[in-house]
């Protein structure tokens, strides 16, 4: 090993250690920031180390790419609002996958279009471009849905799963044949094209509320594509970082699926919510109790314990700052305000936490489902802001309901439930929510942000 190669390996080793320490620091919010700065330092070390690589003879394209990437990446880091975080994360999975896929394609191309590729290397390259390509289109599709460029409801057509699986099977068959004989460029490029098509067809039928699982899975795939790149070009730091990312996405996917009481297969191929006919009970003969902002304000003003349950509706209305204002008033009157956060509330893991933290709400008041669920019975008011399926008691009781078995927040145990909701339209799953018809539930109709602002005003006037 030349001294230069040893130096590069040392840089990679240091970077790997710093990455692991960085992720480790995320187990606690007070240490997380420092830890991630260390990880960023690790990245810098790895990049500088790589620039010493003996194969690099010209810096023209490198400088151009680094400059352009920094010019695009900086505003994506600094200016993207927290409310746009799900689509921001989705598109960044795409960028990562683009890099991995292109390295794989170029590697195959420069090695005589496969003529000088060994079987083991072909297997690595195959995984790299398969995972990479399907992540590119899958993430782009997820981005389109979250940014509302595409309809966020599931887009389905008859025989969709059969078509998707056929595309996937064809891509895998080409992969297998390439490992047997790598020197067939037509098969290679066809495999890339099929993987691209599969990524799109995989995400298209998945609806908005299932996005937390999809984003986590794509996170995992992007990581696996990076790791496969490491195998293909024989680079350990890529393997390590890719494995970390892959593991992280995998763990998150499991947590998200479990929080919905569904399997991966069901999320990916179930097209949840696509048949509105699957709606459980209908609401005929039941009445809702509407409440005026004045009455709701009185209840909140004199409550000792208020538990706020945020959902995607809060993110859409961007009402997190009004939530904080309301909470401050309740606290000024001597009450306590906690926030009950369901793991799949919103469009990505941790979505609600980020929004509430942005509104300057201390993180020790943001409670996970299991920690807060037995406190609802002590709560004077449970304030549901734009959440629906995660508070539907049908998940506990109604075996015919599509969400039966999903762990939910026990808001119905609170003395009074106030639901801020735009209209009586059912939530994503297309299921009626019997919570809205209970005697201790009052509905405050209107835009969440406007309703909260009104409540703040009313409490101030009391």
């Amino acid at each position: 090993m030349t001294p230069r190669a040893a130096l590069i390996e040392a840089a990679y080793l240091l970077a790997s250690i710093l990455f692991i320490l960085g992720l480790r620091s995320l187990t606690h919010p007070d240490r997380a920031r420092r830890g991630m700065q260390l990880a960023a330092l690790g990245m810098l070390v790895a990049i500088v180390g790589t620039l010493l690589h003996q194969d690099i003879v010209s810096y023209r394209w490198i400088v151009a790419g680094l400059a352009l990437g920094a010019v695009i990446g900086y505003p994506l880091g600094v200016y993207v609002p927290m409310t746009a975080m799900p689509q921001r994360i989705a598109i960044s999975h795409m960028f990562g996958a683009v890099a991995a896929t292109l390295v794989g394609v170029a590697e195959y191309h420069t090695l005589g279009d496969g003529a000088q590729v060994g079987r083991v290397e072909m297997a690595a390259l195959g995984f790299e471009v398969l995972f990479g390509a399907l992540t590119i289109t899958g993430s782009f599709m997820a981005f389109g849905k979250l940014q509302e460029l595409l309809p966020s409801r599931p887009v389905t057509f008859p025989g969709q799963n059969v078509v998707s699986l056929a595309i996937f099977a064809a891509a895998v068959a080409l992969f297998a044949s390439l490992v047997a004989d790598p020197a067939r460029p037509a098969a290679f490029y066809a495999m890339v094209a099929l993987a691209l098509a599969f990524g799109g067809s995989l995400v298209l039928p998945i609806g908005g509320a299932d996005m937390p699982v999809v984003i986590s899975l794509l996170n995992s795939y992007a990581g696996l594509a990076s790791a496969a790149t490491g195998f293909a070009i024989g680079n350990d730091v890529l393997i390590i970082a890719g494995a970390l990312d892959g593991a992280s996405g995998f763990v998150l996917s499991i947590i998200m699926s479990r929080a919905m009481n569904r399997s991966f297969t069901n999320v990916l191929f179930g097209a949840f919510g696509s048949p509105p006919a699957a709606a459980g009970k209908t609401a005929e003969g039941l009445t809702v109790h509407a409440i005026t902002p004045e009455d709701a304000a009185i209840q909140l003003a004199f409550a000792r314990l208020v538990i706020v349950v945020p959902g995607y509706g809060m993110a859409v209305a961007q009402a997190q700052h009004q939530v904080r204002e309301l909470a401050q008033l309740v606290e000024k009157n001597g009450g306590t305000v906690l926030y009950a956060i369901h793991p799949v509330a919103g469009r990505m893991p941790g979505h609600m936490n980020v929004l509430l933290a942005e509104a300057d709400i201390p993180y020790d008041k943001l409670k996970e489902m299991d920690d807060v669920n037995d406190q609802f019975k002590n709560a004077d008011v449970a304030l549901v802001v734009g959440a629906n399926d995660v508070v539907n008691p049908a998940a506990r009781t109604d075996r015919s309901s599509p969400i039966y078995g999903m762990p939910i927040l026990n808001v119905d145990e609170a003395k009074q439930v106030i639901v801020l909701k735009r209209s009586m339209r059912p939530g994503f799953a297309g299921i009626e929510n019997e919570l809205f018809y209970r005697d201790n539930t009052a509905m405050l109709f209107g835009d969440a942000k406007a309703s909260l602002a009104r409540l703040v005003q009313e409490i101030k006037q009391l």
Partner: protein
Amino acid sequence: MHGASLLQLYVFLLAGFVGFFTITRVPALLHTPLMSATNAISAISLVGSLVLAGAERGRLASVLGFVAVTSATINVVGGFIITDRMLRMFRRAPRPGGERR
């Protein structure tokens, strides 16, 4: 399978284990920063892209390398900045004994 790739497989599996046991301890509170953090970290594929862009293996390889470097750099720069921006927002409640506003 030759020795080097077997060794790589060890590295992959061990790193996967480390990742699994570390990530399972990350609280739900920080799941979004976790995602952007792992995304920034896996942009280490920049390392492969840099060699591709600088190795002069023909025009096509250089152009693909350039696009790959650009994409990966977007994630490195944007990813670490946005993770930091998010983590900066997470703060504790002021202690009851502390100053009142």
